[in-house]
């Protein structure tokens, strides 16, 4: 279901003309990793606002809890200990959907309307249309969507589209005590990120950089990384892209290939019929042995 106050600009497995009566600002969430203290207030806020409750798990020797994203955990603080330039860095990354401008998940999805992209940049899953095929999972270059076993539907961060639709900032932004998280138009967020970079460069983080990967057309969740030359150290891919296979998927090549295959199968079928003729059913032979006389297989005496 679309939110009345959010226009839809792209829809999985569908062609349509997006509404054009109004223009909307592109929004973005800025995650300034240099300010994050790993308190998980954002993670708790996400659970509260979205009514998500993951299982009380176990400690596997890490601060990262639960251990992975799931249908109940849409954002997760991941902790890494890395030696960078001779000093130990405790890197903390708020993981979750990046709301790509060219979303691999949406392009891969074969179910009409299960994934939509709003004109403000938010990529939203509409679970009622999801068929549980999991193509979005392989289509996402950031390993974000998670399939829920119980209902065979896929879930991820919505960028709190319901809050944004009524002029509120996402829940995680509201909860962050250190202003590591901010929300606004993509333009202001990028300007703010640049400002942070100047500060970080002055403080000796000469490799600090903004993570807004162009391989997916830029994202609507943008990171400021103190060690920006090494996004992999934070668990982020260095040059993410949606991959050549996915770009072909649903393009004219795949469609014409599909039509060609269908036609070829039809022609082959006709030739086969002409050569071999109709399929004859072999006559059923009467069965011996301990069956029940209705073609059911014999059963063990114990069952």
């Amino acid at each position, binding site marked *: 279901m679309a939110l009345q106050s959010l226009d839809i600009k792209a829809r999985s497995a569908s062609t349509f003309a997006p509404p054009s009566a109004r223009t909307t600002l592109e929004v973005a969430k800025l995650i300034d990793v240099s300010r994050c*203290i*790993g*308190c*998980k207030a954002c*993670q*708790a806020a996400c*659970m*509260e606002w979205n009514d998500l*409750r*993951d*299982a*009380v*798990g*176990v*400690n*596997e*020797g*890490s*601060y990262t*809890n*639960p251990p992975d994203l799931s249908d109940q955990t849409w954002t997760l603080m991941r902790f890494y*200990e890395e*030696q960078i330039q001779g000093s*130990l860095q*405790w890197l903390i990354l708020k993981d979750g959907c990046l709301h790509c401008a060219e979303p691999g998940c949406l392009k891969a999805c074969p179910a009409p309307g299960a994934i939509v992209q709003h004109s403000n940049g938010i990529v939203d899953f509409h679970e009622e249309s999801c068929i549980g095929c999991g193509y979005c999972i392989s289509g996402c270059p950031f390993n974000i969507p998670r399939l829920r076993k119980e209902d065979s539907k896929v879930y991820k961060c919505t960028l709190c589209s319901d809050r944004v639709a009524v002029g509120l900032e996402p829940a995680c932004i509201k909860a962050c005590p250190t202003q590591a998280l901010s929300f606004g138009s993509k333009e202001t967020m990028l300007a703010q990120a640049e400002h942070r970079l100047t500060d970080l460069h002055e403080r000796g983080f000469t490799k600090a950089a903004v993570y807004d990967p162009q391989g997916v057309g830029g994202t609507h969740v943008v990171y400021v990384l103190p060690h920006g030359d090494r996004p992999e150290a934070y668990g982020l891919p260095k040059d993410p892209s949606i991959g050549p296979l996915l770009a072909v998927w649903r393009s004219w090549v795949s469609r014409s290939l599909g039509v060609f295959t269908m036609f070829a199968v039809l022609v082959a079928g006709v030739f086969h019929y002409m050569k071999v003729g109709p399929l004859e059913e072999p006559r059923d032979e009467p069965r011996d042995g301990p069956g029940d006389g209705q073609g059911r297989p014999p059963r063990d005496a114990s069952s």
Partner: protein
Amino acid sequence: MNPEGVARLFALDKMNEGPFPEHYEPFESPLDTNPLHAKVVSNPAARIFKDDRDSFGTAKEFPYVATTYRLTEHFHFWTKHTRTAAVLQPEQFVEIGEDLAREKGIRQGDKIVVRSKRGMIKAKALVTKRITALTVAGKAVHTVGIPIHWGFEGLTRPGYLANTLTPFVGDGNVQTPEFKAFLVDIERA
């Protein structure tokens, strides 16, 4: 600045010690001496009952320094009852450095026992690069980090009270307990 050109410090004459800080070894110390002044090792003004003094361990029996602290996910012993907080930090753990883990054959997530002269707890091991062995007076000293929060019932997995390990010492002026430095031994459970 005052007319005489120096700062002034006022202190109540009700204090048992101070106002200037002084280094004393904790009552349970990995060293036998105070490197600054060997004659006075620990704080003579601290409040200790005689029987409690008998419950102090020695570095021979309990070779590692332990400290207790809190985590951002929980508030004291209260928030174990909150489902969200329990999800974010579900199970009791103690932090040890990689060197100590290697020495003791402890791997990430192993269950370990931490013992002091006063009691023991069991918890998961979180092996970290953030805690390294210190060299103090020519001796390698390992630290064991013990987050509190567990013990009593709640929605988290059950755990042990960290304060079964800690010594009964009150500081000279305000009786703050010496929970930040004491001695323990650890092993795989």
